[in-house]
């Protein structure tokens, strides 16, 4: 599996009339998940989320690629 760097978000059964809507839907969910958390709690949430998503993706080659891209900009 090659790391997909193009917009790739959508929700089953939902009809979008604007290209920006699925990305904005997700971003709102993400920021909402952090609401009322301390900075330390937010870090923990992010770590748990990464572990969950990594397991879901499964393919270690893809994850290696994602880690490299993420690291480039830090």
């Amino acid at each position: 599996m090659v790391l997909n760097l193009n917009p790739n978000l959508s929700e089953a059964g939902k009809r979008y009339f604007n290209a920006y809507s699925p990305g904005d839907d997700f971003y709102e969910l993400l920021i909402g998940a952090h609401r009322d958390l301390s900075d330390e709690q937010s870090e923990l949430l992010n770590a748990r989320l990464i572990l969950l998503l990594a397991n879901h993706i499964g393919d270690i080659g893809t994850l290696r690629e994602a880690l490299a891209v993420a690291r480039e900009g830090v």
Partner: protein
Amino acid sequence: MLKTYTYPKYAYRTPPEIASGKVLKLPVVVVGAGPVGLGMALDLDLQGIPVVLLDEDDTVSIGSRGVCYAKRALEILDRYGVGDAVCAKGVSWNVGRTFFRESEVYNFNLVPEPDHHRPGMVNLQQYYLEEYLVTQAASRPGIDLRWTNKVVSVAQAASGVALKVETPDGMYTVEADWLIAADGARSPIRRMLGLEVEGKIFMDRFLIADVVMKADFPAERWFWFDPPFHPNQSVLLHKQTDSVFRIDFQLGWDADPEEEKKPENVLPRIRAMLGDEREFELEWVSVYTFQCRRMGRFNHGRVLFVGDAAHQVSPFGARGANSGLQDADNLGWKLKLVVDGKAPASLLDSYSEERVYAADENLMNSTRSTDFITPKSRASRTFRNAALGLAKDHAFGRALVNSGRLSVPSYLVASSLNTPDEDSFAGRMLPGAPMDDAPIEQDGIPGWLLQSTGNRFQMMVFVDDPATVDVAALSALDCDGIRVEPLIISRRAVSADSLACIYDVRGVTYQRYDARPGTAYLIRPDQHVAARWRGVDAAKLRAAVARACGRS
């Protein structure tokens, strides 16, 4: 300060009530001659309802204020007769640049979708729009526009509304069957009626400045996140007409508005932003905060709220005047049907239902932009900066960057006025959708589909050959007192006798409406799809019209 614009001063005239000493009972009074109140008056005039429009002031909006008028608003302004003036004076722009700290992260080119009359948006100072609307309203005998007429009290009864109005000649009383409050975010009418508006205030302040550039500067939208000349805040630069640029500086909640507005504080900011010796002059400056909120419902008995009086959004995404004009667009024809006794007063509930739905969409989008632009927590700021960093190299990151989403009309797919599809269709012209425009020809003259629609119910019937159309049957489309005008859309350039027939010169109408010969669309007076079928059926049409008028 420089003046690129001379504010008109509109004359006060003694109202007929004071001149005659009589109280007149009026069908509709609109309060507030901003873009929405003026649009509302013009919409009702198109419907044949005489309107008295009251405004406490005697000129147009001071400072640029509303800047960006999006495609749907331009199409509505076309119906009101000022679309050409706005588009001719306005500035079109396609290129937007996004900066993060020192460097440009990415740029985009909003190439307009081809085959639409109007572009995605034009930029124009609000005072020009208001001036054109006032000129248009003044040319309409059915509109009585009264400047320097301030409403000081309002009382509502089951049968109508009574207003006390203050003028330079003293006080008078107006009685009206219907009152439309277009009196802005602070709406005195709303306050006098003791009605609530709920939502949240954003703890932030913005400095806005109109700046006249002396040298060439590109017609582009520039947005900075956390720039070196204004650390930790955002800045927006937008081109308007007459070389006037609009600049919005985020200030933070602790800023002192009076202090920030002083030229000695504003000028260095702008100079730092331009980063060179380019000459400019300040024309207007103001500080604002904003709220994201709306009324629970927009109709209260005989009083209807439109525009900022009903709902307020953050300025990111240009959803203030744009959505207010769509309120007027939605309300005009409904009020006409109710005034004429052709629809129950409950049809006005659908005005609230549909425009609350749209307001919620606008509130959601503008709140999302605000949350991205001004993060409220460390985690939120980290995610935003990460998205901006990824945007430089990766398309998915660019999709997440939200510096304001262009105002687009709501697809009223959940409206109770829609007749659900029985037949299968592709594309996006589903019941509740605002009509897509398309290039057409009528009597050999090139034009646009939307110019052939609006202000009345119509049934678009797609045909291969207009000669095959049953003219008598289509001409008699009267649905229990509501006329439905046929609009034949032909793939061949022939004219049909006594029926409006347009030629789908490039096949775009057929394509956008997923049409086949025989396909029929019921179109509302506000250019929204109400129903559609693969064939004309008089009984189904009658039921759909009844539904679209709130009769069933």
